[in-house]
């Protein structure tokens, strides 16, 4: 059963609705949000309330519910993990 959640980029205030399944992974949401908000390719994490959601957890295991607002937060590492890749 799909759930509708709100994903928010707090640095701009932009929000979007996203339909997710319990079997989806948190990192899938991050990836979709990066693409949707056209964010810089860098590490991010998801915040729900006062908790950081583990990227390997499923939506169901992470306790994400219908109508939840989750925020996508940059993970400042002083470097880069996957810049543009070229041959």
């Amino acid at each position, binding site marked *: 059963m799909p759930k509708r959640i709100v994903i928010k980029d707090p640095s701009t205030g932009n929000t979007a609705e996203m339909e997710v399944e319990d079997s989806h992974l948190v990192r899938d949401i991050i990836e979709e949000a990066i693409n949707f908000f056209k964010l810089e390719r860098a590490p991010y994490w998801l915040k729900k309330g*006062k908790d950081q959601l*583990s990227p390997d957890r499923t939506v169901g295991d992470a306790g994400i519910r219908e109508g939840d607002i989750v925020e996508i937060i940059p*993970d400042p590492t*002083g470097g880069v993990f996957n810049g*543009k*890749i070229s041959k």
Partner: protein
Amino acid sequence: MQTIHIGNLDNDLYERQKRISWWDQDKISKAKVLIVGVGALGNEICKNLAQCGIGKMFIVDYDRIVKSNLNRCILFTHNDIGKEKAKVTAKRVMELFPDVKAEPIFERIEEIDESIYQNIDLAISGLDNIDVRLTLNAFCYYYNIPLVDGGTHGMRGMVQVVIPPSSACLQCRWRSLSADILSKKYSCAGEVMAVFEPKVPALSTSTSVIGGIQAREAIKILQNIDYYRKNKKWPEGIVVLENKYLYYDGERNIYDITNVSINPNCEIHKYRGKEICRKEL
């Protein structure tokens, strides 16, 4: 006639910090800390720890100083360009604070003598990439060494503390990202591809804030780790960023702390670190 002095308050280098109620200068003066990476963050960390009178620093960095380092690295001068960061940092720390011993190690973290982990009380990373952080994280977990990690990106920054084995570690957060990096270094056909690594924005004010918080967390841990290990909790009034992630955003003046939990798929927690370090990283 003899003059009576009521104490010599200004002759003790550490007199003001000793006024913190729980401060134990003896513990700090005996503490041995591994600092990995002495760029902008590492400079701040070394400066702060030296000012507190830390006993010994092992300073690891396999890089040399370039001109663009100088606007963020308080311990480097123009005359140091081209020199080893670790060596210059150690020399400058001991010049400024003769009580502090600093040993430079011009090696990659993967290659340093592992016996060092049996001779330190805490590690701090001032690194600029995830892979090396994960290596340090694995060694610290295996040897049961508290790790204070920090990072910056422009006006943003983060700090997380790992107290093995009870707290979430860096692998918990990045294990899937790390796999992504490794897989993306190779094409589907197995052909090695270059990874373009652009320079990231950096600002001295952000590194001052994050380096300051890292050093502060290190001091709190060094002073209170014995109590923590005995009682499985920190003393009343002391909150350490264990199982927590401090996020700092200087543009929006945000200083936010979120809870982090152990990733059930984390290899470090499953296999105790070092084996993973050897085989996977």
